[in-house]
């Protein structure tokens, strides 16, 4: 089960955080700070996996954004990399060549898409087509409300 996912920029600014386990805000901030520093200090060719406390960190950089997930000991690292990739693909498809600014200005959409992909820290839907269909259906509902 995924514990949390963080998106942050090369400058260390947090862009999105999703927690699947409950922590007090203070702890969340501490974890975030620690991980951002650790990951930003790593070199490009290094391994994407880290031992960290009692979980494993899987991270990958896409352009100026780092995607970082904490998973449990039993979880599959390689497939977590592909969860990240699937999420990036979904953002890319939805926003059309996604960039950091899209996520800043439409953070709520980024959350809605993530909620379709993962629920309670587990993958809900792996089909790109199905996730996009669900998001499109939400957008249709909104547009209809605008018309009324």
């Amino acid at each position, binding site marked *: *089960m995924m514990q949390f996912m963080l998106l942050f920029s090369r400058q260390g600014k*947090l862009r*999105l*955080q999703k927690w699947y386990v*409950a922590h007090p*805000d203070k702890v969340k*901030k501490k974890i975030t700070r620690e991980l951002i520093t650790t990951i930003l200090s790593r*070199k490009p*060719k*290094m*391994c*994407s*996996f*880290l*031992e960290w406390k*009692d979980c494993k960190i899987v991270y990958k950089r896409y352009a100026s954004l780092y995607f970082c997930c904490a998973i449990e*000991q*039993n979880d*599959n*690292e*390689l*497939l977590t*990399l*592909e969860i990240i*990739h699937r999420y990036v693909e979904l953002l890319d498809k939805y*926003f*059309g*060549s996604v*960039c950091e*600014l*899209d996520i*800043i*200005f*439409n*953070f*709520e*959409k980024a*959350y*809605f898409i993530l*909620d379709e992909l993962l*629920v*309670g*820290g*587990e*993958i*809900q*839907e*792996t*089909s790109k*087509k*199905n996730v996009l269909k*669900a998001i499109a*259906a*939400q*957008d249709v*509902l*909104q*547009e209809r*409300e*605008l018309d009324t």
Partner: protein
Amino acid sequence: MAPVRGDGMRGLAVFISDIRNCKSKEAEIKRINKELANIRSKFKGDKTLDGYQKKKYVCKLLFIFLLGHDIDFGQMEAVNLLSSNKYSEKQIGYLFISVLVNTNSDLIKLIIQSIKNDLQSRNPIHVNLALQCIANIGSRDMAEAFSTEIPKLLVSGDTMDVVKQSAALCLLRLYRTCPDIIPGGEWTTRIIHLLNDQHMGVVTAATSLIDALVKKNPDEYKGCVSLAVSRLSRIVTASYTDLQDYTYYFVPAPWLSVKLLRLLQNYNPPTEDPGVRGRLNECLETILNKAQEPPKSKKVQHSNAKNAVLFEAINLIIHNDSEANLLVRACNQLGQFLSNRETNLRYLALESMCHLATSEFSHEAVKKHQEVVILSMKMEKDVSVRQQAVDLLYAMCDRTNAEEIVQEMLNYLETADYSIREEMVLKVAILAEKYATDFTWYVDVILNLIRIAGDYVSEEVWYRVIQIVINREEVQGYAAKTVFEALQAPACHENMVKVGGYILGEFGNLIAGDSRSAPMVQFKLLHSKYHLCSSMTRALLLSTYIKFINLFPEIRSTIQDVFRQHSNLRSADAELQQRASEYLQLSIVASTDVLATVLEEMPSFPERESSILAVLKKKKPGRVPENAEIRDNKSPVPNAHNNAHAAQTNHTVSLNSTASSDLLGLSTPPANQSQTGTLIDVLGDIYSATNGTGNVINNAKKFVFKNNGVLFENDLLQIGVKSEFRQNLGRLGLYYGNKTQTALQNFVPTLQWSAEDALKLNVQIKAVEPTLEAGAQIQQLLTAECIDNYSEAPSIVISFRVNGGAPQKITVLLPLTINKFFEPTEMNAESFFARWKNLGGEQQRAQRVFKAQQPLDLPGARNKLMGFGMQLLEGVDPNPDNMVCAGIIHTQAHKVGCLLRLEPNKQAQMFRLTIRSSLENVTQEMCNLLVDQF
């Protein structure tokens, strides 16, 4: 930036732009505070806000929160949004409460009500929104409120697939908070059958749920195994076009495959059914075969997804640990990855091989890759990969490759990353000890460790080398020679000084014959380091010096000068001052004999599990740094409280050192820290008596021949005895030492012996305090008066509780056997044999023949007889090997004369014991006490 569909919120976009344009942190905070004030006034204002405005402000609050600021209002407005009939407003409301969960109970009720309404909706989008919110919050309130609805949604035929998926994971989330939410009975079958669902998304979500349920109730969910195997079989044999959108970069359903493979790891063996088992093995073979096929795409996504399935399959193969063929194939596959250009793959392959190394089927196959792994340890650019290589080398080490692996690890230590040095040192120390066939090699390895990475050598490691040297006579001379040489290096690590000091103090005499390491040379070498060391090491060196006085009387005056120098203000440390003064006095006051006894060589340490292993386990609780052969092995470890270099000299010391397993007794083990101040000298010379039977030492039998020492010891308690006897009277001091870190409560020792014997041996005991503090020792006095001859000695039963736990009870036989009331009687051969003949009656004599303990030890037997209480008569028996004794037992009622003859038979390795006395009971009891003791 592309325009976003749905409805944009202009105000929000403007605000975000403002924040981004802020030139400084202060400006940003100012802008945020202005916005917060604005929103607050809007929320509080008289004008009612419409849904759009509410949504916009709530969204701004969310954004501010995500920037890292605290938000303490807006929850009510967000909850209002939940009941909006506009989806976009509802959605923002849900997002806000999901991100800013508040346990405010009033609001939770409202939230739950809104969720209930949305769950009833005919629109699946609304239902999913509600389910996602439940999963995001996942509180106990939620679990209680929806425990009936969600399972229904999950298995109902009417539910749409997308809703089923959310419901499965939502239920899983609630189950993790509140395990009793899952209904049993017929639900079990219905949940299991979700594995057969047409929709791959539903199966994927349901597999996660089932995996969690199986963990709690494997038997109830056993039916899932064959379904999971069938499903897996269909996926691995599918072509990548079959599964359409569930194929990911040419890999059919990697997520579902991995989940199914994980699910099957909950059972061992996965199934009893040979058919299902066969199909599963086919699947695993197919996955291994596919790994060998050329890639269908150059994209890393293809390789990642394919290898994710492969690694999970290998995990299952390792978990089953039954198919040698599959294990070896897995190992070969991983071996190929060791030289893959993807760092991630090399990392995972090393990690996975660690597990393979611990299986008997694949251990040898892993060893084939030793060279590559050593290269990885040395050459990998990423320290975490190097770390995995070290772990693997540790796991694959066995008798055949230990020397090579240890040597390579030592070489690498010189340049290893600081972050992994300490752990490497522990590993090298464990392997060197475990696989040493020649202990000179072990000593070399540990000294090299100290030389190369002295700062990372923990106490446990250098304690350990000392224990091993003390326990192994064959290596002592070599150790002395080697430390002596190592100390000659101009800059040597303080840990080397500690080990060197200790070993030379014990065994310096073994190399003193060589003029290059003559006593004075040894002393000067050690003392040249003294001023550079911490006070703990100095204290140790002072103990070494006093030991030198015993070993090398010729340098006594030089050492006394040093003690004199440090016995005054020049030693700023009070402990050192005290030590120096006391050692000085000891060297002046004590006779050579006393000195030799007080400073005699350290006795062997009892054998126990290595404490180093425990340290390593503690360092890495979640990981697998296991060595195949070490898993359940026991190897010797110090008994923390037994020995003290320092304690022997009647010293109570408390230097700063950790309490666990401190070999030097420099911290505060109970037995050394006497509060009565009388026991230490008693216990000091007795420890050799401890025989390591597990953790419990019960010496009662040995006390037939002696009066003082450790009577009993386990992990919690040590009982020492000091006793003296005169005529028919005896006095015993019992010393109870609490070895734990917590107080022993309800501590009550009581006497126990038969009523009949109680009349013949009158014992008075003083009560003790019912609480024995952590690390403390208390004394209990006993007086004994022998009224008449008796057979059974009394026992003491000690009951107590540790930390409020279950009551503990220890029963130990007291050293109050009848022979304690002996008075030795000197007589010549003539009178001995005259009496011998007089006591020739049937009831007066008894004889036993028994096997000697190997090897037959005549001086030892004589010593024991002297401790027994009778007079050992010299020149009485014509055969010099025979031992004869005479003595009188004092009871109030009688005086009982006793004669003893012990005849060894060297060829047969037997003893013949004859006792003659005036009372039948006494004769028999003497025999019972002595038989099998030699």
